[in-house]
């Protein structure tokens, strides 16, 4: 990442002024809009919050139009909506099974919220909610915390056996239990960081390439520009994949708390 502007004959003060704009991380900046608080909790709105609302609204719009006039023989949009529904349904049924049914609405919402956040973030000028570690961490901690609590609720003290792998020699248990605990604690971290890092990395890469486009002369700009075009396609794919991984791991964690292992 070398933003050499020296070759572009800009005066020094112009470069300094441009510096924040030439920052590829600039578009991850959360900017508060309306400051509010409720019982001491900061509930200000910001560009990030608006992006969440827009993403959620897009989910609603998509399904509204897909199922505006549901038919037995579906049209294209309805088929797409049904594919999305059945995709999440299949995931829940395959991984958790019959006992996963009550969680289906939550997992469905999670998948489509994250998916639309990922995808709407690709629109130039918009904001990528899932590139905020605090957002992904909120979801991952909620999921892992819930699965832990639900495991206790279902199995009581027996749930602690979850941290003692079966079939391990007694001598090794003092070693295995800490490893299991650490791996359990790593769950929310890996879940949150994976999504955040993927989004941040992809968008940073795009931003860097766009900065190359605007800093290079026209005969050189087409190369990074072409790359951004291709990479936007890749980012759409990554948006899907990451939403899928986030959701499927959620299913796995809930399944662990229901069936242990």
């Amino acid at each position, binding site marked *: 990442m070398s933003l050499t*502007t020296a070759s572009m004959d800009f005066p020094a003060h112009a470069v300094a002024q441009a510096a924040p704009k030439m*920052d590829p991380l600039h578009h991850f900046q959360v900017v508060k809009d309306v400051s509010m608080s409720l019982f001491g909790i900061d509930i200000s709105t910001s560009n990030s*919050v608006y992006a969440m609302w827009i993403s*959620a609204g897009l989910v609603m719009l998509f399904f509204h139009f897909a*199922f505006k006039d549901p038919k037995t023989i579906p049209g294209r949009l309805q088929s797409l909506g049904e594919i999305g529904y059945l995709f999440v349904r299949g995931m829940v049924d395959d991984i958790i099974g019959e006992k996963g049914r009550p969680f289906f609405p939550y997992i469905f919402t999670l998948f489509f919220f994250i998916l639309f956040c990922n995808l709407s973030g690709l629109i130039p000028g918009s904001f990528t909610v899932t*590139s*905020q570690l605090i957002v992904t961490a909120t979801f991952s901690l909620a999921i892992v915390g819930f699965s832990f609590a639900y495991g206790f609720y279902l199995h009581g003290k027996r749930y602690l056996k979850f941290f003692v792998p079966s079939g391990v020699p007694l001598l090794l248990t003092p070693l295995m239990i800490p490893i299991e605990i650490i791996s359990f604690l790593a769950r929310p971290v890996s879940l949150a960081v994976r999504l955040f890092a993927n989004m941040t990395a992809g968008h940073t890469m795009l931003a860097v390439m766009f900065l190359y486009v605007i800093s290079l002369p026209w005969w050189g700009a087409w190369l990074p520009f072409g790359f951004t075009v291709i990479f936007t396609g890749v980012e759409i794919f990554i948006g899907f994949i990451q939403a899928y991984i986030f959701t499927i791991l959620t299913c796995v964690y809930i399944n662990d708390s229901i069936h242990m292992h």
Partner: protein
Amino acid sequence: MVTDAFAATGEHAAAAGGHAAAGSGMPQFEPSVFQHEIFWSIASFVILLYLLRKYVLPPIEKVLDARNEKIRSDLDAAETSRREAEKISAEIQKQLNSARRQAEQTIEEARLEAAKYRELARESLGQELAKKKTLALAEIDTAKASAIAELHHAAVDIAMLATEKLIAKNMTKTETNKMVQEAITAIQESKIPVH
């Protein structure tokens, strides 16, 4: 240059959040925005969950269930139709078989009947012929007898005529009768074959 940019980011974040950034240069690690991000993440999720549950999931489930129901009923109907068709086909096969059997039987009967009629015809023809032969023979016998009788009369007449003419001068009637009688007897005894 790079460090400058990062420093600028830090300032930016500081300006936005009102706190000093962690120094990493990444705006995501600016703690001042965490609280409202957490709140709105959860709030947005819960609201979206509520809306999806209320307005989106039921129609999807309804249409999918309706389709499943339709497919099931269509399959059932198809199965019923198939079974019906099989039944009808078996029935037709049965009828066809019986018709064929009946036709064969009819042909066999006709053949037997024909044979019987032929036999009868042959028999009656034989009888007819035999009857005709008998009749013809009888006719022939009658004709022979009448011929003999006629011949007899003719012979008698001729003989009488001849005898009359021959004997008219020197023979009496009595003698003549006697001689004719003798002549007839002789003819009868000799049994001249006429046929």
